[in-house]
C-alpha cells in the first residue's frame, strides 16, 4: 500500500518535473512535439493509402524503417557497455552515466518497436503476434526471437533503473542483491538482442549479401562503437545544461570503449571488402552495387562514400590518445562515427541486400517524403522519451526530487 502511494507521488512529481524547465527546454520539447505530429500525419497518410506511399516495392521490400530499426537495436545494446563495469565489476566511474545509458536504451527500444510497427502492412492485426492470443512461430522465425529479446530487454532496462531510482527517490540505497542479477542478465541480453537481430538477416540464404558469418560480430562491433559514442554526446550535453556531474574520467573510459570497438569494426570491414573484391563471385554484386554502383545504378554511392571516410577518420583520430583526450576532438569524432555507422548499418546494410534481386534485377530505392516524415517522427519520439526519462532521473540522482522531502514540507 505504501509502495503504491510512493509510486503515485513519484508519478506526480515527475510529471511536475517534466512540465517545468527553462525556455530552451520548452522550445526543445515543443520542437519534438511538432516533429512527432508531422510524423503522425505522415503515418496517417500511410495508413490510408497503404505502404505504396513509401519508396518500397516488391523488389526492395524493406527500406528506411527497417534500416533505422537495425541501427537502433545496436544503440540499445550499447547500454550494456555501461552496465557491465558499473554493476558487475563495481567500477565507480560509470555509476553516473549508467542511468543515462539505460534511459537511452529504453528510448532506442521504443523507437525500434515503433519502426517495426510503422513497417507493418497490417498494424490492426498486430495482435496476431502476441503469444497466447495469436500464433507465435517460435522458434522457427527469427523475428519472433527478436520480439522476445527486444521486449525482454526493454523490460530489464526499465525495471533496473526504475528500482534504483525508486529507492533513491525515497532516500534509500538500492540493494545490490536485487539489481545485480538483473544487471548480469541484461549484459547477456544486450549481446543477444544484437546477435539475434543480425541473425534475422544472416539466416536468409536468398540474400547472399547478408548471408555471411561476419554479419553478427560486425553488428556487435559497430553497435559498441555507435552506442557509446551517442552516450558520450548525450553526457556532454547533460554536463553542459544540468547540474548533473559527469566526471572526465567517465567520458575518457567511454571513449576508450568507442575506440576499441571502432577499430575492431574497421578490421572486419576490411576483411569483408577483401572477400568481396579480391575474389569476386556472383554473390559480390550487392557489394559492387553498394560501393561502385551496378549498370549505372548508383543511388547508394554518395551515402557509403560519406560513411567510409568518416568512419576511417574517426577511428584514426580516436586511436591517438592525444586527440581522444581532447574533448572537442572527441565529441567531433563521436558525432562523425555515429553518422558513419548509421549510414553503414542502416541504408548500407538493408538496401543492398535486395539489390540485385533474386534474379539479378536492379531496382533502386529512394525513400519518399512520407517515409522520411514518419522516420523523423519516430526519432523525435525517441528523443522525447529520453528527455523525460533523463530529466526525472537527473532530478532524483541530484537529490532534488525526494519523497520524504515533499512529505515534510
Amino acid at each position, binding site marked *: 500500500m505504501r509502495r503504491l502511494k510512493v509510486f503515485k507521488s513519484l508519478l506526480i512529481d515527475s510529471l511536475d518535473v517534466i512540465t517545468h524547465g527553462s525556455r530552451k527546454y520548452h522550445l526543445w520539447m515543443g520542437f519534438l512535439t511538432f516533429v512527432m505530429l508531422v510524423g503522425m500525419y505522415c503515418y496517417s497518410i500511410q495508413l490510408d493509402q497503404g505502404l505504396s506511399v513509401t519508396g518500397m516495392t516488391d523488389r526492395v*521490400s*524493406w527500406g528506411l524503417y527497417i534500416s533505422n530499426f537495425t541501427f537502433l537495436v545496436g544503440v540499445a545494446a550499447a547500454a550494456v557497455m555501461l552496465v557491465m563495469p558499473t554493476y558487475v565489476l563495481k567500477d565507480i566511474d560509470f555509476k553516473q552515466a549508467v542511468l543515462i545509458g539505460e534511459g537511452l536504451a529504453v528510448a532506442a527500444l521504443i523507437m525500434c518497436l515503433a519502426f517495426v510497427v510503422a513497417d*507493418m*502492412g*497490417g498494424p490492426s*492485426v498486430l495482435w496476431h503476434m502476441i503469444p497466447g492470443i495469436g*500464433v507465435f512461430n517460435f522458434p522457427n522465425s527469427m523475428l519472433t526471437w527478436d520480439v522476445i529479446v527486444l521486449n525482454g530487454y526493454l523490460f530489464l532496462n526499465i525495471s533496473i533503473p526504475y528500482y534504483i531510482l525508486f529507492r533513491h527517490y525515497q532516500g534509500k540505497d538500492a540493494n545490490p542483491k536485487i539489481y545485480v542479477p538483473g544487471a548480469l542478465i541484461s549484459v547477456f541480453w544486450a549481446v543477444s538482442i544484437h546477435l539475434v537481430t543480425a541473425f534475422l538477416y544472416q539466416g536468409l540464404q*536468398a540474400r547472399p549479401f547478408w548471408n555471411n558469418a561476419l554479419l553478427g560480430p560486425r553488428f556487435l562491433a559497430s553497435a559498441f562503437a555507435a552506442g557509446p559514442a551517442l552516450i558520450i554526446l548525450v553526457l556532454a550535453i547533460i554536463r553542459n545544461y544540468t547540474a548533473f556531474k559527469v566526471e572526465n574520467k567517465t567520458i575518457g573510459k567511454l571513449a576508450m570503449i568507442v575506440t576499441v570497438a571502432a577499430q575492431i569494426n574497421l578490421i572486419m570491414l576490411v576483411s569483408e571488402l577483401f572477400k568481396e573484391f579480391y575474389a569476386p563471385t556472383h554473390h559480390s554484386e550487392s557489394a559492387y552495387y553498394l560501393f561502385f554502383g551496378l549498370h549505372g545504378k548508383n543511388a547508394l554511392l554518395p551515402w557509403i562514400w560519406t560513411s567510409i571516410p568518416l568512419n576511417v577518420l574517426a577511428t584514426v583520430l580516436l586511436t591517438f590518445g592525444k586527440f581522444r583526450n581532447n574533448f572537442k576532438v572527441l565529441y567531433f569524432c563521436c558525432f562523425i562515427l555515429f553518422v558513419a555507422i548509421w549510414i553503414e548499418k542502416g541504408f548500407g546494410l538493408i538496401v543492398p541486400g535486395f539489390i540485385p534481386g533474386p534474379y539479378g534485377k536492379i531496382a533502386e530505392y529512394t525513400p519518399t517524403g512520407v517515409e522520411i516524415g514518419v522516420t523523423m517522427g519516430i526519432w523525435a519520439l525517441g528523443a522525447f522519451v529520453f528527455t523525460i526519462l533523463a530529466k526525472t532521473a537527473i532530478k532524483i540522482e541530484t537529490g532534488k526530487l525526494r519523497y520524504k522531502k515533499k512529505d515534510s514540507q
Partner: protein
Amino acid sequence: MSENNTKWFSLNLSNSKPKQQASTCGCGNTSGGCGGHQNEIRSSAIGDERHKDGFEQVFDVQMDRRTAFKKLTASLLIGAGAVTTSCSVVADEKSKEKAQIDWEEQFKGNYKLMSDEEKKATVDRLVRSYELRTNKTISMTSENAQENVLFGYAFNISKCQGYMDCVSACVEENNQDRNSEMQYIRIHEMKDGQGLKFDEADDNYYHEVPAEGHFYLGTQCFHCDNPPCVDVCPVQATWREEDGLVVIDYDWCVGCRYCMAACPYDGRRFNWSKPEVPEDEVNKNQHYLGNRMRKKGVMEKCTFCVQRSRKGQNPACVDACPTGARIFGNLLDPNSTIRWVLENKKVFRLKEDLGTEPKFWYFMD
C-alpha cells in the same frame, strides 16, 4: 422496419447514410452498375472513377484522410460499431448482420489451425458478406489437401515462345490487383548462347515474340518443399499444405514482408496499396487460400490455383499456354505425365544449392 420491406433497397445501406444511398441504389442495373454507381457518388469529390478493392468488396470500408487515424484501432472500432449497431433501434437486420460478420472476421483465428467446421464458417461469412455488400453471389470453397497428392510443375524452355498468355490468365484467374499491375509469373527473355543470364534478361518486354536469337523462361513461386519463406513468418500466416502447396492466410498476415526477403525466387507479391479489380472482371470461383479478394498490406503469391488444382483441374497458366510448355501433375502418381517428364527428360531446378527443394523443374526438348 418499413425499410426492411423493400429488401432490395436496403442491401447496400451503411449505417450512417441510409436515405441517400437507398435512393441511389435504385438504378436497377444488375450487372455491376449498381456498385459503380454507388462508388461514383461517394467519391465524386475526387472525381475519378474508383474501383472497389478487395477489402472493400468484402468489407466495404470507406476511408478518407480524416478517418485514417481510426484505422489504427480498426479492430476496436469495428467492435464498437457492432455494439452500437446492435443497440440501435433503427439499424435494420442487414446492417446488424454485416456488423456481426465484420466482428467475427476481425477476431477469427489462423486458418491453418481451424477445424473443418470453422473453415466452413469463415468461408460462409465471407460469401454472405460479399452478397450483402454487392448483391452478387460468389462461390468460395475451403477444400483441404487430398491424400496421396503432391503437386509438381515442369516448364519446357524450348517450347515457351514468350506469348505471356499464362501471365494474363493468371491475373484474371487470381483477381490480382490491376492498378499495380501485379503478376505472379514473370517471363524472362534471354539471349541464345549465353546460358541462364537472369541479370541480363528482360522480364518486361513488349515486342513481337519470339524475338530472333532469344529464348524464354518463366518463373513464379516454386512451392519449395523446404520453403524458407514459411520458416521466417512470425505468425504462421504462410505454410506448406499436405499436398505441397505453399499458401497464405491473407487475413492472418501482418504484412511484415519477412517472407519476401527470405524467398530466393522472387515468388512473393505484396499489396502495397488497395488491390483493385473491376467488379465485372472478378473471378467468382474462389478458394479461401487462393484467389479470394485480398486487402491492402498483405502478402500474396501463386498458389498453383488451389481453387482449380484441388478439383483436379490444371492451374490457369497451364491451360492458357498455347505451346504446351507447362506441365502440371501429381508427383506421387507414378503414371502421371509430370513423373514421366522427371524420369525421361533432363530436368534441372533453379538455385538447387540453396536446399529449398522447389517443386518446379525446367527441361528442354
